[in-house]
């Protein structure tokens, strides 16, 4: 696998949960190799923390609502 640049991504929502997690793993692999200049390491770590935050948010953002559309009138009943 060629060395990826792992530039910072502005819109994490475009990335999605799965990709974010994958990216996080890549960042960690890079950090674990321990050959990154300190400034870059800090930058990557920060990115990683943002990805973690995004993933956590994605897991918690749904509210657990169950809506049932009624067939006759097209309105929603919230359970």
């Amino acid at each position, binding site marked *: 696998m060629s060395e990826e640049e792992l530039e910072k991504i502005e819109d994490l929502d475009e990335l*999605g*949960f*799965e990709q974010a*997690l994958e990216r*996080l*793993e890549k*960042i*960690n692999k890079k*950090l*674990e190799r*321990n050959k*990154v200049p*300190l400034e870059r*390491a*800090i930058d990557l*770590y920060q990115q*990683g*923390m943002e*990805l*973690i935050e995004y*993933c*956590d948010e*994605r*897991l*918690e*953002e*749904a*509210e*657990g*609502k*169950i*809506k*049932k*559309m*009624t*067939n006759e009138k*097209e309105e*929603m009943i919230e359970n």
Partner: protein
Amino acid sequence: MEGISDKEEKDLDQKIYSVSGLNHFVKGLLEREKELQDVWVKGEISNFKHHKGRHMYFVLKDDSSEINSVMFRSKNRDLDFEPEEGMEVICRGDITLYVDRGRYQIVVKEMMVGGIGELYLAYEKLKEKLSEEGLFDDEHKKAIPFLPKKVGIVTSGEGAALEDMLRTLKERFENIDIVVSPAKVQGEDAAKDIAESIKKLDEMDVDVVIIGRGGGSIEDLWSFNEEILARAVFEAETPIVSAVGHETDFLISDFVADERAATPTSAAELVVPIKSELKSKVRDQKRRARTAMRNIITNYREKLKNLSTSPVLQNPKRMLEDRYQKLDENTERIDILLERYLERYKEDLSNKKDRLNALSPVQTMKRGYSIVMDDQKKVISSVDEVEKEDLLSIHLIDGEILSEVEEVERCQKKNLKK
């Protein structure tokens, strides 16, 4: 008369078959005719004869006609029902001729109970049509999102399937948002109803839609084999998972959907990941990131430490001491050099002084010579520079004498002026 003899001649040319030869000839014609092989025929069973483990003989008939039929043991043992007198069936078979009796018949290879058989044929036909149109092609399959924000469900408003799905979804991801668009899932208009529900959900912000129902007879599941439903599934922008009946039920909706699940419960499993697993994955990554960062920092700190223990940084004074020493050495040397220089200079100076002394008028004056100056302290070296009554000072070795000129006398011989 000629006509008759022609005819007679022609008759004589004709091949005369034996009965069996003729029957074999016809049998051959029938069996070579592709249109008569692998045909489907629908009718009512009558005159049914079957001894266990033997061939089945019967007549298929409708209101106005009948055909002799046989289903050999090798085929009839696969039947999942026992045909009986008066039963409406659909048979697939080859048309042939039973030479012994000179009767044409159908050799049945497959038999289905009437209604089901018709459904099956319709299913096969639609499946082929849609397949040719490309509705099942992989290139149209949309990916099921890894983590949907909102899941749409089209199924019966009541019933085990909905309960199973809701329970499974909640078990895996307790805060998942779900929109249920209830629809009739069997009977007349069910396919249309399901298709409309799919469209409704497709216009909403759901990320994936499960269409499905629990198990039932093939007639119960039939709406999922209808074209209107298949097209609605195909046209939806939202990825759709088809989950109808049990593992063994394959419906048109399964082929056209982006993903097939064996049951509604497995559809729910397919659509939503287990939250706790994801959480622990994220947590693992967080731990890894922290550990890696800590290691990096420790590493750098170590490097820094190594650098700072280098002798120079450890004891910067020593470096200065060395310099001081060098400076001292140089200072000493420069002192010596300076001294030497001064000495030489002094020597030089005293030599010059001696020489100067030798030239100085002082020694001469000591011998009695004096210097005459005017009142401007200008040395007078010729009588032409003075006039009578000028005030002059005569400088001797030990003082001066002020005097006034009474007389100027030029001495010819002693004119030293040039």
